[in-house]
C-alpha cells in the first residue's frame, strides 16, 4: 500500500513538473492554458490520492481514517469541477479579448 502511495505521489510530481515546464516554455497563451488545465488537475488529483492512501496506511485502517479519505475524495471532486472551469473562464476571456494564436512563422516578429 505504501509503495502504491509513493508511486502515485511521484507520478503526480512528474506531471506537475511537466506543467511547470509547459507553462514556462510553451510559445503562446493557448498552449500554456492547455498545460495548466489538464496536467495540473491530473497531478493534483494524483498527489491527493497518494496522500489518502498513505494516511489510510498510517492510521491502520480505522474508521476515522476512512472519514478523512472520504473528505479527500470530496476535494478531488471539487478540484475536478473547479479547476477546468477556471481554465475555461480564463480561455474564454482571452479569446474575447483577442489574444492571437501562435503560428509557426519566423518572419512575424
Amino acid at each position, binding site marked *: 500500500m505504501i509503495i502504491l502511495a509513493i508511486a502515485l505521489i511521484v507520478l503526480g510530481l512528474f506531471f506537475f513538473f511537466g506543467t511547470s515546464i509547459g507553462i514556462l516554455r510553451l510559445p503562446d497563451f493557448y498552449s500554456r492554458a492547455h498545460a495548466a488545465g489538464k496536467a495540473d488537475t491530473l497531478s493534483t488529483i494524483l498527489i491527493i490520492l497518494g496522500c489518502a492512501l498513505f494516511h489510510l496506511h498510517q492510521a491502520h485502517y480505522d474508521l476515522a481514517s476512512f472519514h*478523512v479519505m472520504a473528505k479527500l475524495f470530496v476535494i478531488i471532486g471539487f478540484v475536478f469541477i473547479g479547476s477546468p472551469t477556471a481554465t475555461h473562464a480564463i480561455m474564454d476571456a482571452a479569446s474575447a479579448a483577442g489574444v492571437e494564436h501562435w503560428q509557426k512563422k519566423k518572419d512575424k516578429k
Partner: protein
Amino acid sequence: MIGFFSGVGIFLLLNIILVFIRALKGPTVIDRLLSINVIGTKCINLIIIAGIIFNRLDMFVDIAIGYGLLNYIAAVATAKFYHHNKTLVPPSGDLS
C-alpha cells in the same frame, strides 16, 4: 517518512517558483492569471502535505476543502472583467 514528504513539499515549491517565473515574465495579464491559478491549485497539495508532516491530517483537510471550493472564484471574476473591457493591453500606458 516525514523526510519524504518534506522533500515532496520542497519539490512542489520549487516547481511553483518555475510557474511563478511565467507570472514574472507574463507578456499579458492573462498569462499571469493562468499561472496564479496553477499556484492556487498547488496550495491545496501543500496544505495536505503539511497535514501529513504534522500527523494531524484530519484537521487539515477542511482547509483544503475550502480551497478546493473557493479557488476558482477569483479566476471567474477576473475573466468576467476581461469580457467587459475587451482589451488585454490597457489603452494608454505600458505593461511591465
